[in-house]
């Protein structure tokens, strides 16, 4: 049992957080009174919409939800959610969220961040968050560009990107957000896209359900400065060929006519046609808990076409999800154990210290 502070007294006293009411929420209960100020057609709109749609399904009281963002177009997000929110400073949202969640484990904390915010200036806090596995949900809006500052290349922009700051083309090799997250001990790593709202909403639900840091990368179209960056995956025609949706326990099948699959030849993945030579039984079955498979999936788009000359599809869904103790829970437990070991705090004893003397 931990120390009862003013916060506990206040929150328990004030009759807050009855889930009862929560149940009654509709999506629009989560839209704030601020007019949304993204460019018309920006992918951020659909993501916002799905976030508002999924909130009622979480069974949480509105006041127990907090959105924390850094700086960027994406980072304007909290203003539009009628929950508690903080639009903080560039890159620091994971650190702020850590302080909040560790001190207030009762809250549902969501981090909204862009590819620059999280993988450029904020990359340190990003990897530390994943390592510590603080129980928060992080939504990384990846548009492969700095939107708010009007179009410089970002750490996820492919080599050769012509941008305001790279008129001759960018030279740095980009981060692979999922591979970086796995390397940083991430225990939940998933990908979605703005143009598939149904799946996006499912993924948001998964991030909420997973205990620990849930990293959801969302491909988001910046219509003004980087339009069409993900067209291959979002375009109705190319999508079936270019994407694969991962389902736990299901074989890796894709293609317009579900006629392609991925199999493992030893350690090497390979794309095959399901036309006689190979059938479903030969295919790799998705297992969210297998870190090696997650590694391979995260690297798919780098593998060159092999053998069959077929290209690898881009995986969407949950690549990796395992349970690992959460930092915030461990802190709570440790503080409670301290209470049990050391007993009720006695300030006078503390002030007195080990040794005193009298002066008459």
């Amino acid at each position, binding site marked *: 049992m931990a120390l009862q*502070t003013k916060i506990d007294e206040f929150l328990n006293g004030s009759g807050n957080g009855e889930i009862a009411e929560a149940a009654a929420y509709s999506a629009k209960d989560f839209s704030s009174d601020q007019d949304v100020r993204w460019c018309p057609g920006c992918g951020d709109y659909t993501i916002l919409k799905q976030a508002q749609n999924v909130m009622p399904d979480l069974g949480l009281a509105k006041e127990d939800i907090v959105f924390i963002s850094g700086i960027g177009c994406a980072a304007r997000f909290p203003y539009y959610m009628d929950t508690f929110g*903080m639009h*903080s*400073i560039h890159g620091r949202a994971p*650190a702020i*969220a850590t302080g909040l969640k560790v001190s207030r484990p009762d809250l549902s904390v969501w981090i909204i961040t862009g590819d620059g915010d999280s993988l450029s200036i904020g990359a340190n806090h990003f990897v530390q968050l994943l390592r510590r596995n603080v129980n928060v949900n992080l939504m990384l809006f990846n548009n492969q560009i700095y939107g708010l500052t009007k179009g410089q290349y970002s750490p996820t922009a492919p080599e050769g990107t012509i941008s305001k700051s790279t008129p001759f083309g960018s030279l740095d090799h980009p981060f692979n957000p999922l591979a970086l997250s796995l390397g940083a001990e991430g225990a939940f790593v998933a990908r979605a896209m703005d143009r598939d709202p149904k799946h996006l909403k499912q993924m948001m639900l998964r991030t909420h359900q997973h205990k620990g840091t849930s990293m959801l990368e969302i491909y988001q179209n910046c219509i003004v400065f980087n339009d069409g960056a993900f067209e291959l995956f979002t375009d109705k025609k190319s999508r079936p060929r270019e994407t694969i949706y991962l389902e736990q326990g299901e074989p890796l099948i894709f293609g317009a006519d579900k006629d392609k699959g991925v199999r493992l030849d030893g350690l090497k993945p390979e794309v095959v046609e399901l036309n006689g030579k190979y059938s479903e039984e030969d295919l790799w079955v998705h297992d969210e808990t297998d870190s090696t498979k997650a590694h391979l999936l995260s690297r798919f788009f780098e593998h060159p076409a092999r053998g069959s000359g077929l290209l690898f599809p881009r995986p969407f869904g949950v690549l990796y999800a395992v349970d690992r103790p959460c930092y915030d829970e461990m802190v709570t437990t440790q503080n409670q154990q301290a209470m049990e070991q050391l007993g009720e705090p006695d300030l006078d004893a503390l002030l007195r210290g*080990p040794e*005193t003397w009298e002066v008459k």
Partner: protein
Amino acid sequence: MSIKDQEREEVTIRFAGDSGDGMQLTGLLFTNTTALLGNDLRTLPEFPAEIRAPAGTVPGVSSFQLHFGSKEIMTPGDDCDVLVAMNSAALKANLALLRKGGVIIVNTAGFDKKNLNLAKYDENPLENNSLADYTVFEVDVTKFTKESLKGMDLSYKDEERSKNMFVLGLLYWMYNRPLDSTIDFLEGKFAKKPTIAEANIKVLKAGYHFGETAEVFTSRFTIKEAALEPGTYRSTVGNDATVLGLVAAARQSNLPLFLGSYPITPASDVLHGLSKYKHFGITTFQAEDEIAAVSSAIGAAFGGSLGVTSSSGPGVVLKGEAIGLAVMLELPLVVLNIQRAGPSTGMPTKIEQSDLMQAVYGRNGESPVAIVAPRSPADCFDMAFEACRISLEHMIPVMYLSDGYLANGSEPWKYPQTSDLKKIDVRFEQPRNGEDEPFLPYLRDDRHVRTWAIPGTAGIEHRVGGLEKEDGTGNISYEAENHQKMVKLRKAKRDKIADFIPLQDVDQGNEKGEIAILGWGSTYGAIRTAVFALRKEGHDVSHIHLRYISPFPRNLETLLNNFEHVIVPELNDGQLVRLIRDQYLIPARAINKIKGSPFGVEELKQEILRTIETETLA
């Protein structure tokens, strides 16, 4: 041969040896015994610079200075009367600090070829009478220790380790101190290793008796009780008092305390100290860097905790952007800067108070914060508490400026009872339902303070951020008039704090007069002692010492204008003096020392006299 028994009003002893010789413990034990005898005292340890140097070398020397007496003692002393040197390096490193005619007690075993070489002595100083100006007592501490432990079969290491007890015993004899509290301590410490306890005690006594029997020492000294204010005392170092001040503030506000910190000399002990008190509702978070440290504290403050972050100069400068965010969010945040010598990495273990301007101005835009500074190790408790009180009651970041001198120095502390402590008055915004009119996060009370509206409170969901916000609603606003209004409001809120802090008192001397010495922070003891001496000599000097720096106490300007001359001694190149000159247009003069060490009383006295002359000539 008879032994003269003499009385002394004050004595300064410096224990010096290799890092491994346990000089810090020796000093602490002598200090406790001395405190129990009712002497007033101040101590200051000096550790080797960050990297551990090889044993026997000068950079590896560790020292502990104790100044005690029957009169008021406010500094660890300028030069010392007695220097204990456990090896050649210790002598070399500390001789300069011994007054001419002072006593040196050397462990001759530390002056063999090997040690002399390590200390880079070409000749043995004990033999080339380079020490003619001092009274030298040569004692083969190592030998006597081993002898006194004969037949106890201890490891070489354990024998070596108890050397320091011999010296301690010897000094107890010289200064007429009882052994019992030290014996109790040893029995407690080595409860699980009775032989070690026994050994240490044996050696301690051996040292004591050596003083008595060996016909070396010609005099013993007694130091009467000091006229301390009656009450119960303990001793404390500044960083511990800082920790206790924070814990007390957390209890008096009944808030959970969240410390986000990243280790750095000399601030790390605040993190170490607080992390022991989890049962007081305290969470300590060692962050990945200073930016994450302060950011996590801001996150915790947003959630209703007392958010604190601790560091030193090079770390605090990294926190500037996030502190600016807290200024904008108008959330409570306590930033502890345990200053060290700069610029850049500077001299991490050395003493300086050169981060004041950074505290006042080290952020982009107009970004006002409150600033407080403790003036002595025990005062760290009061000012840490005050930092929290001001921050929580005024919803504003508060900078707390301590330094390495306060952090590691110790003094007797008439510690308070919980019942003596202020309650810190914190109100959270109440929940609302549909009927109530909409919640305005930036509505202010008559102190310009907004309310603390924490997540989990129904009906007051709202968004805050670092962009300029409309007063009242807190919505983003780029509107011209609003921005100017908000800039002025944030400053007015900071300035309003002046109504909730004590008026500035005069520590010593008249309220009106010729010269005011204006100080802040850790120079208190030195200035107080110097001014005391100057007044004795008939100078019309008063001492005013600031503990609240931003805002200044309401009466400071009038007070300073009561004096013909204002002199500001600082351990920097002139910082407070600039704020005073700017704000009050008073031709304040600076006295600066930038040597990584505190003012010596005599040195300061002379500087003040020199300044007075030039002033009065001018």
